[in-house]
Each structure stands twice: as structure tokens, then as C-alpha cells.
């Protein structure tokens, strides 16, 4: 069984008529523009965007944007014709136009052993043409052995359980919303910290090289403190070597943040610091009505986590 690393590019629409939409591609090249055939397609009447406005092309392990528009493409505010992209870059499609953010992520796609090449096995409903010859049925490859996702367990009364083995790899979905970005993970554990080695790098002051780890065991999501300084807290209590994350729990990664709310289905959404914190000036709680919001993070929060009310 091989693991082929697949590089995906993720485009999040952060401003403009498509605000909130997220797209991911594993293709070597994607097109951006008003043409209906574009991969990142803007409404036909948004005339400042050209029909074939720009492309993002993979070059080795990196991606570059190539502009072919009338009104230009800005990379982090500066006009470019061709430039390499890094995670978190914001592209403005035409001066004064919609904005998208760019992220790339590596995922390991499990591949069965290469099958024999077969022609497409589906004969067409041909009245006027020769039907395709029936090719032999493809050899079924050896079944992929993957851990089935654990069934969710009824939460026991929260007596501090012994910390479970943290290194267990499990296929469990985990999504982190932080500012305008959304990172999706299909496998845990993941580490959060300053270091580029972390699956979720967080280059903020007060965050250690490896600050925290999220893992999944026994049908539950857990968080573990890797900082060695007892900084990671859930609902105000230090997590130390492991603490379960339950829906509505508040996670704080360090005394200076960032702060997150954990929602069911493995979603961590950036939030304001909890109000009892005396040292912080009190911040308003995130609104849940679809009003015009000043914070893009809140917009993403209410659009994508809407169903959490039903859980």
C-alpha cells in the first residue's frame, strides 16, 4: 500500500460576491476568471474581472500566480504579473476587486497497488455508433487497510481519565478556522506551534515551537500541552498531558491566546477570549445573526458552523 503525497491548493473567497466560498484543487493548474469554464469562477457580470483573468500553476512543490487580465492582479496589495505564492497570501482579482486567500496543503492519499490499465468499461448507449468493446473487468486490487473511523462513544462523566496513548494515528476530520483561513485535516494527531514542522504552524509571539497537539482516541477529540509550561487550557483548566474536547469547550493556547471554541464534528473556530478574564478589556461575544460583521473570521464562523445549533 503506497502513500502518495498529494498537494492541494485551497482558495477561500474572503471578499466579494463569493465571500465565504472555499475551493480545493489537486490539479497542476487552475484558471481564475469570469469564463464559466474557469475553476475559480466569478459572476458573469463582474466586469472588472477578465474572462481569463489569471492562473495558478504548480511548479514543483510551489505555486505561482500568472496574471493575464486587463485590470491586474494584486498579491498582498502589490500588482504582479507572475509571482510565487506562500500560505496565507491574499490575491485581489482586479484593482478594487474580490479577494481570495491561498493555502497549500499536503495530504497523504492512500493508493492501492497500480491496477492494470483498462479502457473505460462503460459501453455507450449507441444507436448510431459502434458500441465500445467490453474490456475485461479490472482486477480488484488488494483491499486498502485503513482504520475505520471510530464510532462516537457516549461521553462518560468527566472524571480525569488516565491520558490515552497520544501517538495513535487515526483518520478523523479536524478543521481549524483561524482568521480568514480554514485548514482541514483528515488524519490526527496534529501539532500546533511556531515550528514549520507542525501540521498547523502558528507563528505568534508567546507560542512555543510545539505548543499543543490534537489527537483522536476512543471516539473523542483530545488536546495535549506540548509547551512544557502548562499554558494550554480548556475552560480555564490546564490540559497537561491530555484533556477531552467537548462541544462548546473553550480552548486557549497560551495566556495571550489565540482562543478557540471547539464545536462538534472536530471543528475548532477562533473566538474572543472568554469574558471573565480580568486582564483583557471585555470584548463583545460573537454575534450569531447574519448582520454585517466587522470581522471576516466571524463571518466564516457563522456561515460554516451554522448547524452546530442543531447538535
Amino acid at each position, binding site marked *: 500500500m503506497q502513500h502518495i503525497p498529494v498537494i492541494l491548493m485551497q482558495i477561500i473567497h474572503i471578499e466579494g460576491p463569493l465571500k465565504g*466560498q472555499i475551493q*480545493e484543487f489537486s490539479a497542476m493548474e487552475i484558471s481564475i476568471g469570469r469564463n464559466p469554464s474557469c475553476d475559480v*469562477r466569478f459572476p458573469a457580470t463582474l466586469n472588472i474581472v477578465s474572462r481569463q483573468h489569471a492562473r495558478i500553476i504548480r511548479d514543483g512543490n510551489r505555486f505561482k500566480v500568472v496574471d493575464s487580465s486587463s485590470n491586474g492582479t494584486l498579491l498582498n496589495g502589490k500588482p504582479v504579473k507572475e509571482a510565487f505564492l506562500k500560505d496565507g497570501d491574499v490575491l485581489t482579482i482586479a484593482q478594487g476587486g474580490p479577494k481570495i486567500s491561498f493555502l497549500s496543503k499536503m495530504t497523504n492519499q492512500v493508493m492501492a497497488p497500480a491496477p492494470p490499465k483498462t*479502457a473505460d468499461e462503460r*459501453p455507450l448507449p449507441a444507436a448510431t455508433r459502434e458500441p*465500445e468493446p467490453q474490456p475485461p473487468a479490472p482486477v480488484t*486490487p488488494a483491499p486498502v487497510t485503513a482504520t475505520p473511523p471510530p464510532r462516537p462513544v457516549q461521553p462518560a462523566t468527566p472524571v480525569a481519565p488516565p491520558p490515552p496513548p497520544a501517538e495513535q494515528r487515526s483518520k478523523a*476530520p479536524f478543521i481549524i478556522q483561524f482568521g480568514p483561513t480554514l485548514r482541514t485535516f483528515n488524519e490526527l494527531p496534529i501539532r500546533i506551534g511556531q515550528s514549520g514542522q507542525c501540521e498547523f504552524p502558528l507563528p505568534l509571539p508567546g507560542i512555543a515551537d510545539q505548543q499543543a497537539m490534537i489527537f483522536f482516541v476512543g471516539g473523542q477529540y483530545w488536546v495535549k500541552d506540548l509547551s512544557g509550561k502548562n499554558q494550554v487550557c480548556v475552560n480555564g483548566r490546564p490540559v497537561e498531558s491530555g484533556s477531552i474536547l467537548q462541544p462548546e469547550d473553550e480552548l486557549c493556547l497560551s495566556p495571550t491566546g489565540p482562543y478557540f471554541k471547539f464545536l462538534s464534528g472536530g471543528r475548532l473556530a477562533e473566538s474572543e477570549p472568554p469574558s471573565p478574564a480580568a486582564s483583557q478589556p471585555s470584548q463583545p461575544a460573537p454575534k450569531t445573526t447574519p448582520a454585517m460583521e466587522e470581522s471576516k473570521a466571524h463571518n466564516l464562523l457563522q*456561515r460554516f458552523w451554522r448547524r452546530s445549533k442543531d447538535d
Partner: protein
Amino acid sequence: MKRMEGTTVWQDFRLNYFGISDRGQVRTLNEDDFLIMPEYHLFCVADGMGGHAAGDVASRLSLEGIGDYFAFRHHPEEIPRPALLPDDLVNTPLLEGAVHYANLRVNQAAGNKTMGSTLVAAFAVEQAIQVIHVGDSRAYLWRDRKLQQITEDHSLVYELYRQGQISKEDMRTHPQRNVITQALGPQTRIAPTILRFSPLRDDLLLLCSDGLTTMLEDSELSSIVSTHPTVHDIGSTLVEQANMAGGKDNITVVLIHIE
């Protein structure tokens, strides 16, 4: 692999959508595709077929045809008239017109090659949701905690099932399960099936290629829909489970939750 998600407002509903197309475990190419045009509340899945990667071209052309038609019909002053659009399709109901036009696009491009594509599409317009299909890509509706297939496959095995000669489970393993009776491309005339329904809040519509339904039974689909809270989770899990069950074909799913 391709994924797309977002939300769009329609009437007094919010349509939360998620589309994903995955190559599966066996095929060397992904000849499925999907198209979501949120501004038109239009959602489509296409499964292409034909030798030598013609399926890839067929599904792409089908969806381009639909997209070009919708854009032109909505903005006839600003969008140039699509190539090959005959006069008798300029004023037909949108969804029907788009599918007939897409058929012409694929038919023209095929020349003397054999290529075609299935299609299943949902379009929210006025007070109803219209669903059109050609071939064996399907639409399911989740309502009152039950998942029901609302389209009838244009396929040989579906005919056998409808006549009571085989069961629905047998369809998935029947030696002629790949024989479909209609597709976009091979002929200049098609007879798509259209249905309409009035949506209720919390309805979930699932459009998919047969790469999903030959790997997972309806009861498994139902179980996944009922145990995941967002269209993103449902869609990702459906593809994951179809891959774990063998992933013998490309897998494409578009989900629309009506909130």
C-alpha cells in the same frame, strides 16, 4: 481531486452546498466533474465515458455547455451567444434548455469518436427545486430522517429492477450495471427526465455519480447523512467510505442543505 463549498441565499432559505470529486482507488483518470453556480442556484454532476480520456472531455464539455447557457440566458445583453445554440433553445425553460444545449456541445465535439456523459442537475427557481437527469447519476432527497432516491436511472439494470426481475442490491453487482440507455453526446436528441418538488426547511439534496452508489448501499448513505452535522462532513465521509469500500470508479457528490 476537487472540492468546493459555500452558501447562497435563495428565497427565504440559505442553501449550504458542498461538492467533491475524487478519482477513487482504481481508475487512472477522473472523468467525473461537478459544476456549482451559486449565483444561479444551480448544481450539477457529470460522469463522462468513452475511450482514451474522452470521458474527461465529455463531462467537462457538458458542464461548460450548461454554464455558458445559464450565463447567456441570464445576461443576454452582455454575454455573447454560445456557439451552436439553435434558435429553438433560446427561450425554453432554463434547465431543460441548458441540458439540450450541453448535449449538442458534446455531440458536436465528439465527431466520429464515441463519447458521452451522464448528468444530474438541481436548480432552485421560483418556489421549487427542479431536478433533471440523463443517465445513471442520481439525486436523493433526505427528509424526515429518511433518504430516498428521487430519480430513476436511465440504465438497463434499473429497468430490470423496475420490472421486478432483480432487487436493488443486485443492481450494484449485475454484470451489465454499466449499460446506460441515455447520455449526453452520442445522439443529437435526448429525452431527459425532469421532476419538481417544493423544498422544506432542513431538506438535504444529494447528487452523485454511480461511483458512490456502486460502492455504498442506500442504507449506508442514509447512515452517513444522519450522523454528520454539516454538508462538508457528510460529503467528505461519503467519499472516504466509498474509497474504503474499494473506490472502483470516480466518486462525485454534491450536497445541498436547505436551511
